[in-house]
């Protein structure tokens, strides 16, 4: 049975897909009645505090826990040796990232601490406060080693090698090349270039990383409540490394206070908690505090990129050539690896544009700093900033309007499917239409005219654009083919209960973006019941189909499709039973808002509840060989395209105060094409949240380090996150180019805002500074950097 979903026909039966419905979870959250990991209290629960290395690079000598163990309420102090006996190390590499290398990692290191903030011992006590008291009393004799903290020199001969067995500090290197870049630059009419920096920063989830682990000695099962985006992946990892069968490990997610990729990775301290729970046979809770978070949550986006772009005499881009260098931590992070960000940069630069020659290199090197890994939008903000920065330079070099230059060079909307020079396959994008919509939404002509007038009065307003592509709905080509046991497929089980209510269990997960809401909408429409009788189960490896969780914007496109298929199958099964009960052909019936109806006339034949009663309690009244499976499971995996690429374009309108260097964000726009939109309200809010997160990296957020490898921003006072007073209103528009890979046609949207915002901000600032001939390319664009660019203060 096929289901044609026309987003325009909102009066179609059970029309929930495409509607801006409020989330069912929201009510309890606004009443403060959510349940996050730290809210869970179980009998005999213990607490962990970690002793963390104060040094960026040091040999761990003797660990003296005697004073710590002497404090009342302290039960154990574990070292690397203690835990290594119970946990196998991991190595975070992917086979398809050729040549990638990283050192084995344990929950607590055995001999050497390799970043300031690395957990080196674990204290277990009956309260967090006492555990912290004890941790302060653990005495470690350190032998400080020279730290590696400059990525530019990480591969130089004099620089110490962090893991001597690896031979050098090189993790991964790749050149992505097509066409003839050398020739293109040789014969170019114009060449523009710049060196871009993306500043290392981090996610700052308001709920810190949290885990409550229990090992039941009665049945040898490990039960974890974890603030994670990928419970099945964690189940897999814990089973493998703690040497348990998969069936003995259960990972449950309840409410999660923000994740954005921070909580999709394997953290050694969290694994340590699971190991400790197994050893002690008592529930053990760990919640990172904010100080720990800055020193141990993954960081991201520490890049230096040299970029060049060639343009021909017709104003057409002919080549991009980029050289990316990124410094990660001392280990690649498990299991998604820390080379993906650099790899994405070389896959995505130039993405929206039609040009033949491409060369992109990434070099990923180790550093004695907090490990880095995937964080919302991963390599996109960097690739987009480089691309769009060069594009604006190109427009300026030619003396033409940046919108006009883009229109001249964007891939045309009717030229798909096609493959980019970087090798990315696009099914269907809408760059031109999106840009057109954006220009209308923002009254571009009006803003330009106003800018001119205000310039005459010494007011520096800027308008900046960023076209971007964004990968969503990942196939096994992202991780699976590299050997990582990360699921690209997902599943949903839909069940009609005796009273006609519906339960849907899904392998995709919720962290506030609205996963449960959209699954509910899809299932309600697919089955044919009122939305408020549908209940969704997420985040439990034991009770949901095996899935991948939520990351790389896969919830709607992959999880949603599995839910749709399962819902359709469940409806079909119900109609088959109804046909038998009503002496009608199942094809002549439909299920609409909880009633079996005559398809042609819409006349109600029987409530679904009646069918439920019969199937579950009076099965004797049905034909003996009639199938009556009111519970159907379907799985979905994308098969044709490695990613469902989406596209969008953003604009920033801002004002730079050239006396203070402060930037006032006047307004922001984003036009986003994520295919079929299941809930426009939720998509808009994801875009807005993503934009502000991108703005954070562009203007405020920076994990700065001393040369000795000390993180110099340790608290929310120093590390500046975007707050309400500085953020603009953000208007969101949509184009819908559905994917044909699925019935639902949905692509992903969660990371688009972050992908394009930094580029739009950068281009707007440089547009504002145009009268001064000044440019900024190093994020964050602080007041000092802006003032230095225009020569009001010296460069530091």
């Amino acid at each position, binding site marked *: 049975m096929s289901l044609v979903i026309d987003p325009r026909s909102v009066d179609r039966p059970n029309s929930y897909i495409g509607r801006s419905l409020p989330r069912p979870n929201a009510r309890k959250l606004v009443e403060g009645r959510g349940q996050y990991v730290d809210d869970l209290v179980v009998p005999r629960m213990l607490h962990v505090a970690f002793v963390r290395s104060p040094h960026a690079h040091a040999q761990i000598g003797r660990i003296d826990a005697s004073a710590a163990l002497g404090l009342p309420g302290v039960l154990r102090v574990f070292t690397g040796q203690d835990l290594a006996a119970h946990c196998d190390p991991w190595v975070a590499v992917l086979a398809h990232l050729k040549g990638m290398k990283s050192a084995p990692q344990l929950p607590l290191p055995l001999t050497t601490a390799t970043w300031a903030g690395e957990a080196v011992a674990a204290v277990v006590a009956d309260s*967090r*406060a006492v555990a*912290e*008291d004890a941790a*302060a009393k653990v005495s470690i004799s350190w032998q400080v080693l020279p730290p590696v903290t400059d990525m530019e020199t990480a591969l130089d001969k004099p620089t110490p090698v962090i893991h001597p067995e690896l031979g050098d500090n090189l993790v991964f290197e790749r050149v992505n090349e097509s066409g003839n870049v050398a020739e293109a630059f040789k014969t170019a009419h114009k060449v523009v270039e710049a060196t871009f920096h993306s500043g290392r920063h981090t996610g700052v989830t308001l709920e810190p990383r949290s885990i409550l682990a229990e090992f039941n000695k009665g049945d040898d099962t490990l039960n974890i409540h974890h603030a994670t985006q990928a419970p099945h992946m964690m189940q897999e990892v814990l089973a493998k490394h703690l040497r348990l069968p998969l069936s003995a490990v259960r990972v449950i997610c309840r409410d999660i206070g923000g994740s954005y990729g921070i909580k999709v990775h394997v953290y050694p301290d969290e694994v340590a908690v699971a190991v400790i729970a197994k050893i002690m046979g008592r529930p053990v809770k760990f919640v990172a*505090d*904010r*100080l720990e978070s800055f020193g141990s949550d993954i960081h991201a986006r520490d890049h230096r990129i040299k970029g060049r772009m060639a343009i021909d005499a017709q104003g057409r881009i002919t080549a991009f050539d980029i050289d990316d260098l990124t410094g990660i931590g001392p280990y690649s992070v498990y299991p998604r690896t820390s080379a993906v960000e650099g790899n994405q940069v070389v896959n995505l630069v130039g993405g929206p544009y039609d040009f033949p020659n491409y060369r992109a290199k990434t070099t990923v090197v180790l550093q004695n700093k907090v490990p880095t890994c995937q964080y919302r939008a991963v390599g996109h903000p960097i690739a987009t900033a480089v691309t769009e920065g060069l594009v604006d330079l190109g427009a300026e070099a030619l003396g033409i309007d940046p919108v006009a230059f883009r229109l001249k060079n964007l891939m045309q909307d009717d030229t798909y499917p096609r493959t980019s020079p970087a090798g990315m396959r696009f099914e269907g994008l809408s760059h031109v239409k999106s840009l057109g919509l954006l220009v209308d939404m923002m009254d571009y002509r009006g803003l330009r005219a106003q800018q001119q007038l205000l310039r005459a009065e010494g007011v520096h307003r800027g308008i900046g654009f960023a076209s971007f592509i964004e990968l969503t709905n990942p196939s096994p080509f992202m991780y699976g083919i590299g050997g990582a046991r990360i699921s690209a497929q997902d599943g949903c089980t839909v069940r009609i209960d005796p009273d006609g209510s519906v339960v849907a269990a899904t392998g995709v997960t919720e962290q506030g973006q609205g996963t449960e809401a959209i699954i509910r909408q899809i299932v309600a429409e697919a089955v044919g019941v009122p939305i408020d009788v549908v209940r969704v189960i997420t985040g439990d490896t034991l009770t949901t189909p095996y899935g991948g969780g939520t990351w790389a914007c896969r919830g709607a496109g992959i999880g949603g499709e599995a839910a749709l298929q399962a819902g359709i199958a469940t409806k079909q099964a119900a109609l088959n039973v109804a046909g038998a009960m009503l002496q009608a052909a199942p094809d002549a019936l439909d299920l609409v808002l909880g009633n079996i109806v005559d398809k042609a006339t819409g006349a109600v034949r029987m409530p679904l509840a009646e069918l439920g009663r019969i199937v579950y309690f009076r099965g004797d009244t049905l034909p003996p060989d009639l199938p009556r499976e009111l519970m159907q499971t379907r799985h979905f995996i994308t098969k044709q395209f490695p990613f469902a690429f989406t596209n969008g374009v953003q604009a920033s309108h801002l004002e730079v105060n050239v*006396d*203070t260097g*402060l930037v006032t964000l006047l307004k922001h726009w984003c036009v986003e094409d994520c295919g079929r939109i299941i809930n426009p309200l939720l998509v808009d809010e994801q875009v807005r949240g993503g934009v502000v997160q991108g703005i954070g990296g562009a203007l*405020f957020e920076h994990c*700065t380090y001393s040369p000795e490898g000390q993180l*110099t*921003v340790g*608290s929310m*006072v*120093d590390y*500046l996150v*975007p*707050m309400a*007073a*500085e953020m603009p209103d953000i208007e969101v528009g949509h184009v819908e180019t559905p994917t044909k890979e699925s019935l639902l046609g949905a692509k992903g949207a969660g990371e688009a805002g972050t992908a394009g915002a930094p580029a739009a901000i950068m281009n707007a600032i440089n547009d504002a500074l145009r009268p001064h001939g000044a440019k900024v390319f190093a994020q964050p664009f*602080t*007041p*000092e950097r802006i*003032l230095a660019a225009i020569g*009001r*203060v*010296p460069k*530091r």
Partner: protein
Amino acid sequence: MKAGSFRYERAYTLAEVFRLRREAGGDAQLLAGGQSLLAALAFRLSEPSLIIDISRVRDLKGVSVLPSGHLRVGALTTHRELAAHPDVNRHAPLLAEAVPLIAHAAIRNRGTIGGSLAFADAAAELPACCVALEARIIATGPNGERAIPAATFFTGLFATALAEDELIQAVEFPCAAPGDRATIVELTRRCGDYAMAGLAAWAQHVDARLQTPRLVYFGVGAGPVVAGAAARALGPGPWTPHKVAEAQTLLDRDLDPPPDQHGGPEMKRHLARVLLARAVGKLGVEPGVRAA
């Protein structure tokens, strides 16, 4: 980030505070609004053995106008109370103008002027305002009371002239005379942040002219910094662009800013110059008229 262990005592009179402090032998800290102390305890920057809660000591509360022509503000006056009090608005409006710049509403509801001055953060607004208004800090201890001029109260980074056994009882401000002008300007990355640089300015109105102003910077040194040379270069008003430019140059004599996360010394000096122009602009404008 749980605080280390300590004992807690509540004091209801000054005598009790002095006694408890003496008995703790210098290892006690005073809890007023707690907006700075609790954070320090959480970071274990501070690990006292005893916390003495002074938030109920009546002698530290209240706002009144003294016959001497001073506004007396009790140390436990919260920022919220300060900005809302009619006497403060009438007699020391600079304080009411400064309060909205301090952090956020939840902090202002509990943070106190006594706490702010005793903590002496170099980037805080109220210490600079006190210096600009030539306030005197009434310190009290077992040996009695004394008035410490604001100009000499702040002795360095997080350091004050209070003796170990003293606490701030009140702050007294000369009541504003008719025509007196005062203003505060600051530059922050985000609303409510500690200032990258800030300036509290005051000028007296005599014979239809504003006199040489008092300029007190914050966020650019170890405490409030009086920009005497710049102020003298301005002299009495009106302040022409030429005078302002001259004063800006002379700021280099007054300020020797250390670098911080927002910028190096040159950045700080530059911002100080920008603030000078802004403050002077606001001072020289009739009340009710917006400065450019």
